[in-house]
């Protein structure tokens, strides 16, 4: 194991986060605070409780997931896309490092950053609504597994993307509908039966539901199924990443 290399990549990526503090930390916190003011305080006060939880508190786990997904995909993809774009990838390819080390460095940094932002939002949320965490261990497990698997997913997008348009395709066009329609702001039993069925094909539903269960013990799907979904997604991402490095897909000629 080339630990110095992992450390270097990780430190390099975290340094990039520090340089772009406004964009990486402050901006998601402001956006989420706005959600809590509008949905939690203003509209939420006139909404019914959902399964015994106030509406503002009900949406908190979904909002954390929304930010976590976007942060992890964004950072994971940008970290590896940028060296490809500038050409500095030559250095990674000509260094004595293996695929596993590259992935640990980049994905580790992207996940760390996602977790930092997610935690800040959780703390922010606690200022606006009553948060309770009934299963802290499960909550952390969902939090970390989601961060790692979506950072890995972002890493794959970064390798696949040919240009900035493709790079932004997932965080801007695909993730928001999945999150919004994945029960972040409602329980899917509020939907007509047809849309309930459709929702079960949305992987984000399982994430949000499992994560919310660890807070309030209310869930749209069985938390075990949620956990298995996250693990399954992680395995799929790992396999694709392994294939990318084995074949040199879009990295090497």
């Amino acid at each position, binding site marked *: 194991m*080339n*630990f*110095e*290399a992992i*450390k*270097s*990549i990780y*430190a*390099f990526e975290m*340094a*990039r986060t520090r*340089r772009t503090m406004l964009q990486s930390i402050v901006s998601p916190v402001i956006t989420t605070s706005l959600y809590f003011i509008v949905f939690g305080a203003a509209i939420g006060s006139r909404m019914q409780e959902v399964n015994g939880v106030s509406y503002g508190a009900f949406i908190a786990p979904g909002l954390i997931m929304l930010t976590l997904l976007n942060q992890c995909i964004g950072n994971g993809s940008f970290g590896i896309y940028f*060296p490809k774009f*500038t*050409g*500095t990838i*030559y*250095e*990674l*390819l*000509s*260094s*004595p*490092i*293996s695929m596993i080390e590259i992935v640990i460095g980049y994905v580790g940094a992207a996940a760390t950053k996602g977790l930092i932002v997610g935690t800040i939002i959780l703390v922010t949320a606690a200022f606006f609504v009553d948060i309770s965490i009934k299963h802290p261990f499960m909550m952390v497990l969902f939090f970390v597994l989601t961060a790692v698997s979506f950072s890995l997913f972002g890493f794959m997008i970064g390798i696949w993307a040919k240009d900035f348009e493709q790079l932004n395709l997932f965080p801007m066009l695909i993730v928001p509908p999945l999150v919004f329609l994945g029960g972040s702001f409602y329980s899917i039993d509020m939907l007509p039966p047809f849309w309930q069925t459709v929702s079960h094909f949305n992987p984000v539903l399982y994430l949000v539901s499992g994560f919310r269960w660890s807070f309030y013990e209310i869930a749209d799907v069985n938390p075990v199924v949620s956990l298995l979904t996250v693990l399954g997604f992680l395995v799929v991402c790992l396999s694709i990443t392994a294939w990318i490095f084995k074949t*040199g897909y879009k990295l*090497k*000629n």
Partner: protein
Amino acid sequence: MAPIVSIRNLTKSYASGFKALKGVDLDIEQGEILALLGPNGAGKTTMISIICGIVTPSDGTVTVGGHDILTDYRKTRSIIGLVPQELTLDAFETVYNTVAFSRGLHGCAPNPALIERILKDLSLYDKKDTMLRHLSGGMRRRVLIAKALSYEPKVLFLDEPTAGVDVSLRKDMWQLVERLRANGVTIILTTHYIEEAEEIADRIGVINHGRILLVEDKKALMAKLGRKQMTVELAEPITAVPDALSPYGLTLSDEGTRLTYEFDSSGERTGISSLLSALSQCGLRVKDISTEQSSLEDIFVELVGEGK
């Protein structure tokens, strides 16, 4: 001693069908400076990229320090330094950090004293906290070299190190190459500046259309292929070369005042004395005589021309 880099039947074909390398065989000895000459698209960069791990070979083997570049890549890549042709650097990193980053990637523990020395050697130390995007082209080139030296490689590839570089930096770089060689570093540089190869290389390889045309000791190459030329300035112009001089294959130029004679300086008989006496027998008065040796450039143009 076994060669430090050994290349056998190295082949690279792209999906488009283009063959960048067509079976290259080359041995590079430890501690030497090898210059690879060749026009654009000859395959120089492809060859280097394969050895460094950036491009996957289609066929053939390469060993560096006795280790295979594919199966033992950790060992080979830790002793190889690469200064790429393009000035590819991160825009927002500082000079010091990017150099330290390279050292880390190669698995070496931080060594601020070493990095400080490298930066001073390359006149970069006062810029160590400058962001890379604020550097000039020449400075960026120095940073790329500093990055490659940060982990003290044993084999250093310089891909067109002096392309677009001013004279003073070029001289600095040649001195640096000399210093590295003194420390036992093997250096492979590609260039299309013949002058550069002539100045610093021990051996010269000529590559074109994906094949090595020759690899030869620089002095031997110059002697072997070096043709000499004698120019005779005549006191009075003539309209044609006299018949008595036809065996010498002279060419007449400059309105009949200049005769040019080509000869092989390594041959036993150069024919100069007989030509001179033949000239006076023809009644031609000689004003001046000069001889010059063809440069590596002429040799190169000749070889590459033949390769077509």
